[in-house]
């Protein structure tokens, strides 16, 4: 090979390298361009000179061999390129991450199957390939394209975002925007949780309305502190619920427009007319979620819930096998892992999917209002748990080790369904069925704990069952196993000396031995 092509290759290399080195400073400039252009020219000139110097093959047989070789190469190249082009649409993959990060969860898959069954308008995920987080998100977004027939992926560039998504493209971190028809939804951080939530919001024909009862000392939905509950409202909105406040059900509208009413640990009595209004609303097929807490006294628990079959005796569940997860381990911090296997709210939860509930009130069952009603305990403490009715003593950590009043597996949550002849149209049996879910703790839904373990799953499952959205009851996406601090700095240095020096040294010594053998 002559000198010219070698020089040309060197110039191309220098041109490309200098472009990469300086592109952030001044983009594509003359120096790299000139090097690349001149280098290509030199390579072509050298190739032409070599071609002119070629004296041909020595005979017909040689020419046949040469032509056959070239034909085989050409055929192989075409086959390889064809296979490459065909395989671009193949989605077969092995997800070997610990948490199966790039494998869609059951919830997402069931949502995709539901979208496919319903023949809903397709949803387009606009994926910005040049976004900051694109490299990490690409695999996840591709999984949606492969698993969801009604979801398509559209590659876009941040320099020219598509028309519908333009208004939502706010920062260079914007990676995915979900669009359906003319409506687009910002996904936020490109995680499975957020993308699926966006699909839920876009695919919901009508968002279930969730009313929060307020005005009786319920939890503070606006507070963003650890003890606040802004996360609870935000979670429900993310999942496609229309969240509103109901300031006393004695207001003109009452809870009539609600699909689900949430009474999040009221601390005071409701007015008699409020209780009566709630009672009538439930009789007509209303749905309610009640969060309780030890020590709270309200006629919501003692009157209304008792009438509907729930006995919230005041006390706190004490369990010797309680959770050490919080900073002050105590027998009051329940790690709930026993669930009713068949109830829609709890059937997707199991021993491996625990819920953390600090200071929990027992939820017992009382007499059913009507014979056809169904009441069921859906989550339990362990067989070693019992109820301490002396709250002061229990909260001070002085519950006796043994008690004659041991119950064993006291329930921390229960659910009831009540077929009622409501005002629903014929065939809408479920619309006239009242449903109530009672959970004996409110702290598990606080900002601090709602993201812990599977707390949000229990809450969302309850909300979806109450909203007759059972098809979307499934585990939410996986938590990322934190793999932090595998080695201390000292250990890292120790391993480095042992491995990064000893091993190369061994190889070098082997090489010296091989060289000496060769010379000998």
């Amino acid at each position, binding site marked *: *090979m002559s000198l010219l092509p*070698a020089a040309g*290759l*060197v110039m*191309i*290399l220098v041109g*490309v390298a200098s472009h990469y080195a300086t592109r952030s400073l001044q983009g*594509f400039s003359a120096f*790299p*361009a000139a090097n690349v252009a001149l280098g290509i020219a030199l390579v072509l000139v050298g190739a032409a000179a070599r071609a002119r110097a070629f004296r041909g*093959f020595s005979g017909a047989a*040689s020419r046949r061999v*040469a032509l056959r070789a*070239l034909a*085989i*190469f050409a055929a*192989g*190249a075409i086959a*390889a*390129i064809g*296979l*490459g082009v065909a*395989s*671009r649409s*193949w989605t077969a*993959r*092995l*997800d*070997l*991450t*610990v948490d199966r*990060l*790039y494998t869609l969860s059951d919830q997402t898959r069931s949502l995709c199957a539901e979208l496919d069954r319903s023949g809903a308008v397709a949803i387009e995920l606009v994926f910005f390939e040049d976004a900051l987080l694109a*490299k*990490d998100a*690409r*695999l996840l977004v591709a999984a949606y394209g492969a698993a969801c027939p009604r979801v398509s992926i559209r590659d876009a560039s941040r320099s020219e975002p598509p028309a519908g998504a333009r208004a939502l493209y706010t920062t260079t971190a914007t990676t995915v925007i979900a669009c359906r028809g003319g409506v687009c939804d910002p996904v936020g951080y490109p995680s499975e949780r957020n993308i699926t939530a966006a699909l839920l919001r876009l695919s919901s024909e009508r968002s279930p309305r969730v009313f929060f009862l307020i005005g009786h000392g319920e939890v503070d939905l606006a507070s963003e502190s650890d003890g606040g509950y802004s996360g609870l409202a935000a979670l429900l909105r993310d999942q496609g619920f229309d969240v509103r406040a109901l300031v006393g059900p004695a207001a003109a509208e009452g809870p009539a427009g609600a699909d689900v009413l949430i009474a999040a640990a009221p601390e005071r009595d409701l007015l008699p007319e409020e209780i009566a209004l709630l009672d009538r609303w439930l009789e007509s097929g209303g749905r309610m979620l009640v969060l309780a807490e030890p020590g709270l006294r309200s006629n919501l628990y003692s009157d209304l819930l008792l009438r509907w079959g729930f006995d919230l005796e005041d006390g706190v569940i004490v369990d010797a096998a309680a959770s050490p997860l919080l900073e002050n381990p105590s027998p009051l911090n329940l790690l709930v892992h026993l669930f009713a296997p068949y109830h829609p709210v709890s059937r997707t939860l199991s021993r491996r999917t625990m819920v953390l509930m600090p200071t929990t009130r027992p939820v017992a069952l009382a007499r059913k209002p009507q014979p056809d009603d169904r009441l069921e305990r859906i989550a339990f403490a362990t067989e070693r748990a019992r109820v301490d009715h002396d709250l002061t003593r229990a909260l001070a950590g002085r519950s006796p080790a043994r008690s004659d009043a041991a119950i064993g597996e006291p329930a921390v949550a229960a659910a009831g369904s009540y077929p009622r002849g409501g005002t629903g149209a014929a065939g809408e049996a479920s619309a006239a069925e009242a449903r109530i879910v009672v959970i004996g703790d409110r702290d598990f839904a606080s900002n601090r704990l709602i993201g812990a373990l599977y707390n949000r799953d229990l809450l969302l499952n309850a909300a979806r069952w109450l909203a007759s959205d059972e098809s979307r009851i499934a585990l939410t996406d996986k938590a*990322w196993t*934190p*793999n*932090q*601090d*595998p*080695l*201390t*700095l000292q250990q*890292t240095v120790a*391993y480095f000396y042992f*491995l*990064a020096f000893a*091993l*190369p040294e061994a*190889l*070098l010594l*082997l*090489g*010296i031995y*091989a*060289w000496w053998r*060769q010379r000998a």
Partner: protein
Amino acid sequence: MIGRVLALARKELRQLFASPIAYVVGTAYVALTGIYFFQHLVSYNQLLFVYQSEGLGGGGFDQGTVPSHINVLNEVFVPAADDFGLFLLVVLPLVTMRVFAEERASGTDELLLTSGLRPFEVALAKHAVTYLFVVLLLAASAIYPAVVVSRAALGFEHLIALYVGQLCYGCAIASIGLACSSFTSSQIVAAVLGYSIPFVLLDFAWLSNAVSEPVARALGEIALLGHYGSFPRGVIELREVLYFASIAFLGWLASLTALELGRAR
């Protein structure tokens, strides 16, 4: 046929490890990967220290102050995998440059082809030995990440995905180098070609301003780096494995063609 290929492969292997170049290349690669992996691990430890520092309001792991995106995967393995790929690009042409070129320069290639071995078998044996060398290089460099994986919760399966990607990438680079070596009798030219072609194929972003978007997209599909990103993240995609296998196949085919053309002349 298999017997002949194996016999040639054994001879090539002996020749490879009789020469100091294999050891020098192995030492360089293992040292470079070790140093850079160590640097990433130290930086990660320092980052953790910053987050945990009480002076900045942190409270240690108990308080969950370290964000979930700060972890061994994102801060150590993914950037380290990019480095490892670059080091393969640096060291492999030094191994591949002599495989065919040395035989051509010394005239023993004619001896080989008249010994009853078919060009198909010669190319197969030489490529197989070089790929085996890539496997040995990667096995030696896997000790560092394996130590970290055994301590962290990353999982050995994830490490397997990373190294499958390294293997595919390394075999592709090696096959390009072998193809270049088969067309010349000069090891220097083979090395220059073995560096240039993979380097240019690495990423075509430098052309994106000079060509239209469809052409830029097509070039992006050819670029090596674009097919490598999923492996460090723990995912083995069939189409990416096929892509690298296609390059290795084309490289082998090119070596075969060079041998056939040499025989024809």
